[in-house]
Every structure is written in structure tokens, then in C-alpha cells.
């Protein structure tokens, strides 16, 4: 079971989680991550832009890699694009598995790759206008964990 979507309007994380739980009734464990626009001082809005011909196929390929690498009953990746207010959900990733370790690692893997390796560009609107958010070093460290694990497989 694979459910990969891009939304250009808001989605309900609660409804997504409930839908996923129903779709994987035999999973003994479900790990989920919900990411929201942080309510930071002076951030009025966040815009996530993307290049659709790469973004959605990239998310599908990411889901396929996770489904191949871990023993999962299902994987859901929902991602917002467009302009969002603080507190709005940006991303929802859920994995259901027989063993919780598989579900944890699959969600962690998907989030690391969505954050650093997916075709999204972010900018924030502050009182003095829009500001692009640059790549972060931590994300590349997060990603490289998986490469090391791959070499050891």
C-alpha cells in the first residue's frame, strides 16, 4: 500500500492518519511524522515551491525505495506546496509494519530525504519581505547516515 500526494491546499493530518490506519489493518505498529510550519517570531507565512515534473516522481521513487528496503505493510507521504500560515501541516509520513523498527527507520529515512533531497524550495515572509531558506549542514549529515547503512547492507 503506497499513498503519495502533493497538496496545493491544506490537508488534515488527523484525517490522513486515520485513513492510513484503516488502510493497514494488519500492521502491528504505525510510526508517523507530522511537520508543521513553525510559529516563529516575525514569520508571517511560508511558501514551498516545487518543480512538479521532478517533485512527484521523486516522492514516488523515495516511497518505492523505502518499501523495498524495509518490511512495510504500507507507506504514506503527503506534502503541501504553496503558501502556508504558521501552524499549518506541511508534511505527513506514516509507515505501518509488523515490527516497529522497520516503521521507525522508514519514516526517518523518508523525512531525511524529503528535507534534503526532494525538489522543494522554501521562503519565509517576514515583516521586511520574503527570504529564501538555504540548505542546512545538518540535513546532509542526516542523509549521509543512510548511505553508510547502504554500504554496510
Amino acid at each position, binding site marked *: 500500500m503506497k499513498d503519495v500526494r502533493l497538496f496545493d491546499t491544506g490537508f488534515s493530518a488527523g484525517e490522513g492518519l486515520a485513513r492510513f490506519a484503516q488502510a493497514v489493518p494488519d500492521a502491528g505498529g504505525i510510526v508517523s511524522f507530522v511537520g508543521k510550519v513553525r510559529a516563529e517570531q516575525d514569520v508571517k507565512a511560508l511558501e514551498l515551491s516545487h518543480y512538479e515534473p521532478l517533485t512527484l516522481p521523486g516522492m514516488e521513487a523515495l516511497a518505492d525505495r523505502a518499501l523495498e528496503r524495509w518490511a512495510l505493510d504500507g507507506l504514506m507521504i503527503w506534502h503541501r506546496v504553496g503558501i502556508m500560515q504558521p501552524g499549518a501541516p506541511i508534511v505527513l509520513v506514516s509507515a505501518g509494519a509488523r515490527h516497529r523498527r522497520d516503521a521507525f527507520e522508514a519514516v526517518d529515512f523518508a523525512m531525511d530525504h524529503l528535507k*534534503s533531497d526532494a525538489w522543494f*524550495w522554501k521562503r519565509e515572509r517576514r515583516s521586511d519581505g520574503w527570504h529564501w531558506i538555504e540548505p542546512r549542514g545538518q540535513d546532509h549529515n542526516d542523509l549521509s547516515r543512510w548511505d553508510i547503512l547502504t554500504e554496510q547492507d
Partner: protein
Amino acid sequence: MSVRVLFLGKLSDLAGAERDMDAPLDWAGLLENLPAGAKALVEGEKVRLALNGTLLADKTALQAEDGSEIALLPPVSGG
């Protein structure tokens, strides 16, 4: 006879979201048509190029025909 060129992320601040350029278009032709600020970034190794939705391994080998879409992709945003 034109090629659509899309500028993603902060490249859109320097060149607008999209421009049409004359076809056919190669790497040298693309650079010639860019404003100076965007040109410097696009020439750098961190900006990737997709032709009709496919990333080029070597962007300098670009050969775009009439009706093609080029996307210029700066590094994606972190966390």
C-alpha cells in the same frame, strides 16, 4: 520556435519565474540570455538543469529544441 526556461527557488528572484528563449538552444545560448546574477549561479556546479522533466548529468551538453522546457534548479532548502 521557442524554449521555455523556468527558474526555481532564489533564481526566480534574479531572472523571474520563467522566460522564453529562441530555439534551438544550447548551453552557451542559455547563458547568453541570462541576467548577470543568474548567470553566475547557473554556471556554478550547485545548480542542476532538467530538460523536459529529466535531469541532465552534464548540463553543458544541453540541446533544447522548439517546445522544450528547461528548469534551472538551485540547491533545495533545508529543514
